[in-house]
């Protein structure tokens, strides 16, 4: 006896709708926590709003290898039934063919022209990661899909200059993550403890990595005034 496709229309209970969105978010988070290798992308929902996610991305390959990017993902209240993919906004103005230089919003329209409930956020994030690490893929996309044409052109024409520019941005991006922000559930780091020592930096990052790996086990966040842990 298959599910009647229209049955959901009859559900008018507001609580239930919220609940369904919440459970979907839990599901997405659990998928993300298992889909990504350690040391790449970590996600934690904002303390006050489960639809706003804080993320951090340690780039491990590609021209921006070693950069660290903080970003936010905004889901719509009717998630997963929103029509367009979630908005991913970077906190650091890194130059990338698919990232708007003005708004720093990542354009995923090539992979996700639309969004529906069968899509999962981990594949959205995987696409983001793929795009960040594969410039060749990005610059060869149809021209209308490329948002930052300048950097795409530079990558194609002058590898030397591009590499210098990339290096500069990598350093800047790492510095950026020390700036604290308001949200309690955000990835931030204490500069004083790091200083200039490369070794400490590395060990702290390693440490961070393990902490972040264990996060999904322990972190709790606010769901409609409910405290619950992910597992």
């Amino acid at each position: 006896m298959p599910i009647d496709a229209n049955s959901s229309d009859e559900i008018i209970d507001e609580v239930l709708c919220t609940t369904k969105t919440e459970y979907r978010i839990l599901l997405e988070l659990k998928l993300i926590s298992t889909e990504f290798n350690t040391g790449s992308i970590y996600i934690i929902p904002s303390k006050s709003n489960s639809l706003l996610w804080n993320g951090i991305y340690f780039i491990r390959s590609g021209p921006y290898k070693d950069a660290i990017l903080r970003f936010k993902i905004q889901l719509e209240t009717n998630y997963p039934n929103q029509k367009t993919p979630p908005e991913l906004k970077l906190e650091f103005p890194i130059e990338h063919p698919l990232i708007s230089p003005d708004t720093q919003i990542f354009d995923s329209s090539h992979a996700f022209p639309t969004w529906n409930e069968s899509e999962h956020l981990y594949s959205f994030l995987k696409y983001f990661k793929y795009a960040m690490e594969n410039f060749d893929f990005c610059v060869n996309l149809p021209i209308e899909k490329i948002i930052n044409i300048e950097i795409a052109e530079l990558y194609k024409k002058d590898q030397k200059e591009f590499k210098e520019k990339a290096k500069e941005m990598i350093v800047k991006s790492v510095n950026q993550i020390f700036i604290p922000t308001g949200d309690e559930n955000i990835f931030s780091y204490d500069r004083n403890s790091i200083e200039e020592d490369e070794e400490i930096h590395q060990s702290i990052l390693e440490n961070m990595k393990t902490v972040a790996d264990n996060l999904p086990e322990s972190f709790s966040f606010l769901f409609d005034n409910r405290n619950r842990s992910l597992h």
Partner: protein
Amino acid sequence: MSWLRSSPLRQSFSRRTQDISNTGTDSKAVSDSFCKHWQQVSDIINRSENRQTQHDDVLAVVNHLDHMTTLLLVELHNCNKIALPNGQHPPAPCLEFMLSENLLDSLYEWSLSTGRYSNAVRLEQLKLYELLVSHSRHQLLVHEPFLRPLLKLLASCQNEIFPHDVGKRLVILLNQLCVVLMQNVHLLDLFFCSTQQHGLQMNGANQTNFIIFSLLIPYVHSDGSIGHQARDALLLCMSLSQKNSNIGTYIANHSSMSPVLVTGLCGLYSSLPNSIEVHSIDWFRITADDVNDMPELTLFMNSLEFCNAVVQVAHLLIRDQLLDFLYQGFLVPVLGPAVLQTNVESQIASMAYLDLILRSVTEPGLLKIMIKFLLDNEKFDGERILDVLIERINSPDSRLCMVTLTLFDTILGLHNEQLMTELILKYLIGARHIPIAQKHKINKIQAYAKTVDYLLDLAPEVMKNSNMILAEHKSLDYQQSSSASLPTHTNIVSRTIGANWNHYGLHNTGESLYSNYHAYLYDAHQKIKRTKYSCDQWTDNYFYKSPHKQRQNAKMPNEQLVQIVRNFLSEFNLDTITTTLMSDEPSNINNISNSSKQLDMDSLQSIGESSGYESMKYRPDEDEEHQINSGNDSGNQISTNINSNITIVKNIEPWRISRFKDSQLFDLEITEDIFTQGTVSLGPFLTSIWSKLQTFTSNSLYVNLHLTGLISHIALYPLPLVHSILLRPDIPTTSDIPSFYQVLKILKQQIDAELPMTEDSLELIDIGRTFLIDREFKLINARKIALEALKASNASQLSTSQTNTQTSQLQTYDPFKRQDDKRKSSSNSIMSIFRRTSTTTASSNSNNNNAGVIGANQAQTSGFAQIYGLLAAGIASLRDHQPNSLELQTSSINDSTGLGANSYINERHRDLAIAAIILDEFLKELSSISQEMSIVLLNENFKNI
């Protein structure tokens, strides 16, 4: 030892010593006085050699001994205060005098001649020894002048029947000795094999003897504190048996421990009432309070608890022996026939006892023989107890039905793999109840999230409307009150966040849990967590495993293989291919994979998948992997190739690849199951439950509460195979009985037809709801009152029979067990009250161990505060202060709901309204379980990959 703290002896001792030590007595004066007293005793003893002991003599000796005891205490007290640096003990002249002069031995020898006063003298000696053993830091036991008379005294106690006070003192002394031995295991041998070493005549027995143990055995079944202390001491001996295997061998081979325990247990079970007087229509189980209230049951439970404890601490030899005796001597000849009786009253009683036993037993070894008992199909004329119990689910007697459902709830609460296999899993493994083309869905956890819509849609129409009206009212109320109360409200939230959230995620007391979906989710969350924790210890996770994987090495004859492929393909109406296939020689089998390339991708997908989003799980590397896995097996090759074709056609973008591979798209079920479609049994247990569910609208409210509770309990197991019939309406089943959803759908239709959406119906629902919510609050209040009454009666020590009856009747309902589907509707305060109650009960009966165990067990197996199910009669009696008039109140709906007052309302409609509400809540409960499950089980299948 807790008993010591409350012992009057200890109290008087500390009082006395305090007085004396404060005066700064010097030790010389003490020892002089001591010697003087002894001199006088000695005179009397010497005198008695020539004449009959007189009353006055004994009195004088006792008196002197009393003084000597006091003086010894003073000395010991002073000694214990001083610590010499070299670890030596400070001088204790009295003690030394006593030992050097062999006072104790003289005393013992004299005591033999005291004739009818011997018990009084013995009592005095026992006191003296007990005092010395417990309060001296000196290792007196190694001193011959101390040990020898002690052993003589103990030996003389054998085979004697003492008045209560002597027996009690003896047990206390033995208990003390056990405590000392626990701390000094090397002293054990002094009490062991003592016969020859000390040349004592013990009933002419020359065998090994552990005298402490054999003296304790007669007291094992005793009532009251003496029994507790004896059992306490015996348990210490049992623990000793783990440190010293001589003890273990002795107890197992030479003592009558196990037979005594088991025969005692049998005797006590036999004395239990053969029928339980049930005063209320919703009674369903024996609670800890009932145990305390029924002396026979208290004794039995004490004994059982003791067996449980022995199994826990004793030497392996003793443990195995006791378990064997219990099985052969109690379970098979006593409990089994009791359960199998034909009289309904006796059945109810014996099932309630069985339920109580199952809830109280905590030791794995004991639990194991209980399970063996349930599953034994040899000892009871080929009948299996479990099967007999299953039959009773459909008993026409609603009390028997409720007790049975409760018993199964207890059984499910054990989270035992073997029992679950016997009840449910063995009928579902292999998923023969699911069409081949659907089997791949079983482990797809994400689909659980969709169950919610389907289940909630099955709610009766009248409930949907009623809920809508209710929601509108609520939101209106909220808008009106929100402006005024908002600030305080947020305050509360911020203060309590993360701290005071109870089981139901609520912090607002005094609120009904009726229809509170969040509470259902919380409840599901907690229970699933607990259940999963237990099930993680199982040998298997019982996810669906295709025979394809299980039988990789099985070689299939080609002819059969062709037949199977033919069946498989014909199921999808792939006529052309089937034709091709049929004309093919078996040796051309590889052509099949080529032909399958012609398959229209869309049609294949629509067969395999109900929704598109699972498609991202196809992996390009599945191809390679399957080639390796199934290289030897041509049968598997086919399915592999079919799979890989699909994989190849679908060009997967790298970001859509999951790290976890999903079970393959199709399983070629190389099994005869294909031919048995439609006749697959889900097993007697589920069949019985389904058939009880089919009569939902005519079952009593309380039966329905337990029934729906049991079904939810089954759903709480993290087993996708079980969920395939409970939480997966997207998976059709081909069992020989209507599917769960078909049953639910019929119920909905039935209620919709008989209770159409009219004003009258809505009003009925309203009345029913009010009844249930009233019941919830009555329970809270009743529980509060009961607790206060209990407290008051405890405090004033005025346990008048009336209070006792009242509280016990009130507590006859088990707050933790399902009495109503709307248990979620209990407010958090109820929950905590109930929780507290169980612990209070346990601790207030700290010397009544079984109550504690039951309490703990309840708290463990049941997170559910079953509110509504409280004995309405119990409340009524409390309110009316007429504890003995329960029978008058039994028809709770009629009497306490006000439903009966509306005489114009048809009774059937009233029952239907209640049934509709229960069904509505049940669906909410199930859908919350499915939502929680969708998170908990996600990727669980791949955890170990």
